[in-house]
């Protein structure tokens, strides 16, 4: 088959852009997809001629649409997002890939649950400190202990007397603690509600 240099350049440019816009795939998968599109272009462009010029190449490319739209079509038909299991396993089932995907989903869910638990815990400590500060002013607070900036102590002091070091927040721990607790609880509740909604909508199995 004879292809004019201009036509070859047009086709190569189109396929280069198309390959660049395809979602991350293995080298073999990408090559396979691009080769198929190339084969299509060459056949359409040469139909009834036996040679390809710029006009026939342009017509073939126009039929495919823009390279980015074509690449996006492969996204649309891609496998579902990680939160949703596929409706049916493929015939050539690869157990290791499915197991890895499930393990990754479960690990992500576990991390999210842990994060929200820690958020609730931190909110509880802040709220407790804020609400009990008026009653235990010398024992409740945020102290800087030692020269190291990271030596902080939040909450109840161990003895009736205030701990060594100096209190950082003073009475402002009340509004700051309440605001911080509210923000943390709101954040955690939003995450949990989203997780619950996803769980109901999808077929995530949290228990093996």
């Amino acid at each position, binding site marked *: 088959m004879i292809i004019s240099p201009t036509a070859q350049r047009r086709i190569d440019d189109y396929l280069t852009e198309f390959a660049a816009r395809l979602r991350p795939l293995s080298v073999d998968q990408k090559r396979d997809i691009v080769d*198929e599109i190339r*084969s299509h272009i060459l056949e359409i462009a040469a139909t009834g001629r036996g040679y390809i010029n710029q006009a026939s190449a342009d017509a073939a490319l126009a039929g495919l649409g823009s390279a980015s739209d074509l690449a996006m079509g492969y996204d649309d038909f891609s496998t579902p997002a990680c939160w949703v299991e596929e409706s049916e*396993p493929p*015939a*050539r089932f690869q157990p290791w890939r499915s197991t890895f995907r499930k393990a990754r989903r479960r690990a992500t869910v576990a991390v999210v649950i842990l994060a929200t638990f820690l958020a609730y815990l931190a909110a509880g400590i802040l709220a407790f400190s804020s609400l009990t500060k008026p009653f235990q002013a010398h024992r409740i607070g945020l102290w800087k202990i030692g020269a190291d900036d990271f030596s902080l102590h939040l909450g109840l002091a161990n003895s009736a007397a205030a701990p060594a070091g100096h209190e950082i927040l003073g009475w402002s721990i009340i509004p700051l603690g309440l605001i911080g607790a509210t923000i943390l609880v709101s954040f955690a509740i939003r995450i949990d509600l989203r997780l619950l909604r996803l769980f109901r909508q999808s077929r995530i199995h949290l228990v093996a």
Partner: protein
Amino acid sequence: MALPARSPESADKWEVQLRKGSLELAVLAAHWNGPLYGLEIMRHLVDEADLIVPEGTIYPLLNRLRNDGLLSSEWVEATGGHPRKYYHLTTAGRRRVTAMARFWKDFSNSLDHLLAPLKKGNRS
């Protein structure tokens, strides 16, 4: 085949949605009698079902059906010098298209029953 020109835009959209929804069934069914490559599939769908599938749609769909294990593919050298990628139904694909065809038949029968009064109304 298209709806009459005076149909509202929503009717055209419905027709498009209906064709889109049946595309997977049509593509799988096209492979029932043997392997086909992309352009052959498109021509087969036009010839047999008057179903025009855009070129930018057929290849991503074929890729997805292959990833789902319903089709398998192989490259074959063609007389034109460039190789062609042929697809054929896998065992799972045959099971799937059979089930889809059965559903389609039941569904269209039910719909025919529902539409029967409209046909009587048109005759009178």
